């Protein structure tokens, strides 16, 4: 029976299994020793730790970690020269300009790849997994794509914004997002001005970011919202309110009339009850269950309870996450294995749980792309749909193969990935198996499955796996363990968390 209660899980039910579940869902999993440490904290201690403590692997990141001038806008002088060249139809000057632009594009793309690697490394190493997990959530929620904005520094800047507000105040984050250069560029608000407003940002604030599709707004609200947002633009890396371009006249948004600007517009949609319910339903799919149609009528009771808490706390997220990660509902058997690992989750969790070498980060990013999740490059403004949309016959093989790559370092045949023959130190995992079998070799196969899979493999597959392990004629160590793990990570159940 599914329990839709926000009542905390009973202390007696807190164990290694629930600790592992929490660490996987609120983060990216951990080694057996890490799971044990989380268990020992007790549930409240563990959730508090995830929400409030832990050190990042790299706290030295700051606004100068990457080159902010990689996309310096042209100076007045350069602009004038280019204009002249165009008017005079100077072919050579135009070519020169194009060449310069191509060069800059190349440098910017190279920096984008460095930023992708930087984030992936951070995801793998972080001591604050929930912060990174929420950063990934917000990246998918306020989806902004590098291919459209072509400014690597703005993508980095936005990523840091998500990290700063990861478990902060949602209303504050929305106010920052309508002033975020990457977002303003991505949804064309920098070109929206009085008399010819661009509706892109207003539409998505209503439909995808804050209120949610079908939640009681009209095309007219979007048009009026777009007028309110006119003049919200940026200079270089900073928000700028262009008063000249702002439509200062009266607008009516969701029934409220006034000389609204972009901040007022955000405030008006944030005042709606639907906003909290929309956001909590999305958090629910991300953290609890992303089966089709979820949250269903029954689990809506739960996600709406979270929404009520979010309203009560005036959009502070921590109390809501505290409620979520301690609830009976979260740990309910029906929600185990009910989330399909995102490509990022699959890669990062495999490394963090099994302790494999991270191999080549650029290869892992390429694999992420093949599996449908290229960081900083969501497919569109809707972000990633998640759940079953991750899985098709094409991505399924890549998912199995990226695990083989992490475990063995062997470069898949036709992939453009680098081979990395660094040997994986299996000692920790061998120890974990040994502690579960108490010397009984016949239990090794099941012990490994229990350690690696989030749900029980079907009995048929367990039997087949046991039979295979038997043929290895030796304990599950070193190369035998590697071979066995290649099989376990290829099981359909491995895709679940």
């Amino acid at each position, binding site marked *: 029976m599914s329990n839709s209660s926000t009542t905390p899980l009973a202390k007696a039910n807190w164990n290694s299994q629930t600790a592992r579940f929490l660490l996987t869902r609120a983060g990216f999993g951990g080694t057996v020793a890490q799971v044990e440490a989380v268990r020992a904290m007790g549930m409240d201690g563990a959730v508090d730790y995830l929400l409030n403590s832990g050190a990042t692997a790299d706290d030295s990141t700051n606004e100068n970690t990457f080159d902010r001038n990689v996309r310096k806008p042209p100076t007045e002088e350069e602009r004038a020269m280019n204009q002249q060249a165009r008017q005079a139809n100077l072919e050579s000057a135009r070519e020169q300009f194009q060449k310069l632009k191509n060069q800059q594009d190349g440098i910017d793309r190279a920096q984008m790849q460095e930023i992708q690697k930087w984030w992936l490394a951070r995801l793998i190493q972080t001591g604050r997994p929930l912060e990174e997990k929420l950063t990934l959530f917000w990246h998918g929620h306020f989806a902004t794509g590098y291919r459209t904005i072509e400014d690597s520094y703005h993508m980095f800047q936005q990523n840091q914004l998500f990290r700063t507000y990861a478990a902060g105040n949602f209303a504050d984050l929305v106010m920052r997002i309508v002033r975020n250069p990457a977002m303003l560029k991505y949804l064309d608000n920098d070109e929206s001005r009085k008399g010819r407003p661009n509706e892109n940002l207003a539409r998505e604030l209503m439909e995808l970011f804050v209120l949610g599709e079908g939640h009681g707004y009209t095309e007219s609200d979007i048009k009026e919202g777009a007028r309110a947002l006119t003049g919200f633009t940026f200079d270089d890396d900073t928000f700028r309110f262009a008063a000249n371009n702002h439509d200062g006249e009266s607008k009516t948004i969701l029934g409220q009339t006034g000389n609204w600007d972009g901040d007022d517009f955000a405030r008006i949609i944030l005042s709606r009850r639907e906003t909290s319910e929309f956001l909590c339903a999305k958090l629910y799919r991300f953290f609890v269950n*992303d*089966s*089709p149609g979820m949250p269903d009528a029954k689990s809506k009771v739960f996600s709406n309870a979270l929404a009520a808490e979010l309203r009560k706390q005036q959009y502070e997220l921590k109390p809501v996450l505290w409620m979520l990660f301690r609830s009976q509902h979260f740990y309910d058997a029906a929600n185990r*294995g*009910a*989330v*399909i690992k995102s490509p990022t989750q699959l890669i990062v969790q495999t490394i963090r749980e099994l302790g494999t070498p991270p191999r080549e980060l650029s290869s892992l990013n390429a694999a992420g792309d*093949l599996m*449908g999740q290229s960081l900083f490059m969501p*497919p*569109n403004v*809707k972000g990633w749909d998640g759940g*079953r949309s991750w*899985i*098709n*016959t*094409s*991505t*399924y*093989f*890549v998912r*199995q*193969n990226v695990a*083989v*790559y992490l475990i*063995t370092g*062997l470069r*898949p*045949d*036709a*992939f453009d990935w680098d081979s990395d023959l660094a040997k994986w130190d299996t000692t920790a995992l061998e120890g974990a198996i040994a502690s579960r079998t108490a010397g009984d070799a016949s239990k090794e196969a099941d012990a490994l499955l229990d350690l690696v899979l989030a*749900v*029980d493999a*079907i*009995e*048929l*597959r367990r039997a*087949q*796996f046991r*039979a*295979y392990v038997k*043929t290895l004629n030796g304990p599950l160590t070193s*190369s035998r363990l590697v*071979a066995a793990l*290649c*099989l376990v990570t*290829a*099981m*359909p*159940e491995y*895709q*679940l968390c």
Partner: protein
Amino acid sequence: MNNLTPLTRRIFLQQGVTLASLVATVPWFLEKSALGMLPADSRVSSHAGVPEDRILVVVQLGGGNDGLNTVIPYGSDDYYRQRPQLGIATPGSNNGALQLDSSLGIGLHPNLTGLKELLDSGQMAIVQGVGYPNPNRSHFASMDIWHTGKSQGHGNGWIGRYVDNACSGSPQADAEIAIGRTAPLAMFGDVHKPVSFENAKLFQWTGKELPASLDVPYEVMNRAGALDGVAAGSQAAFLMRTALDAQLSSDRIRAAMDKTPLVSYPNSQLATQLKSIGAMIRDQMKTRVYYASISGFDTHGGQAGAHGNLMRQVGDSLLAFQNDLKAQGNDSRVVTMVFSEFGRRVKQNASGGTDHGTAAPMFLIGSGVHAGVHGKHPSLTDLDQGDLKFTCDFRSVYATVLEQWMRAPSKKILGEAYPTLKLLRG
């Protein structure tokens, strides 16, 4: 038969799979087939009288192809007024359009020599002004509308619904195949999901190349599609089904790719996809619908060069594909349909490009088409907020293909009856 869950029905798709003997669920198979759930000959036609050997290939041009610079209304002064830089010159002039019909004043983009050849050899039909009411200018919303065939863009895909309908007696694992990383919504039915792959070489498990002993256990474990202890609608069941589909089609598809094609293909993304499709058709796969897609048509700025390259790619690739089918002797079995989610605005923008628009032409290619130009080119003066008014609903094209090519009940699949067009020779 209809009481079967999708999963149990799909288990029987193993026709031609040599590894069936390895499947540990064989007793279960036998049990089910003894109950009469598996047709004695699983290759029998699912619908009496339905020609099962007919194939539809869909080519998607993602991003919104500029229809006005694909089929050029060179006879219209308004065209050149609205597109002073981007307009394609009249036939005969330098880099001018390829003549289609001088009485209508329309031509093809100069780089579409491949399509011109197909047209001249009686193998291509052009449908002009294809769109739908209340056009949506968002890429994904409009693409959803084209994929679902529904005005709201909600629900499953029109091809998926066709395959569900056509294969209700004997579902096939490879009934529909999409080349690419993601499978298009168009191919998702209630029962059938597309097989998709980007590169046949990547379409297999690399762990097999490790110790040889892994090969067999891997096959066994990933083919175990039994439902013991797993709820039919669960995430786990979904994954098992996909795992099984992946294994079955992997063997079949890689076998098909082994042969060298009979004609040479140009070196482009679309050509590579069509080459794979050609190989699968040649290898007598039972697939009914194939899907290829390229993107890059969202030409907001600096359109002329980029769009010209895409036109070259589209024309040359489709010509090579059709020639391949001919060389195989399969050209009469295949119709290829080309579409984009919308066309572009009539007036060029300030960045040397065009913004999202509405109606655009579609192409049907094959030796079974009524070659020539069909329908009416939309007016360049009677516009809807600067955009063309469509003259043909895309679902009429779908209905025509469904009724006259695939011999399927279009009303049932599309949810409404759309008038069919004279595009196919039956």
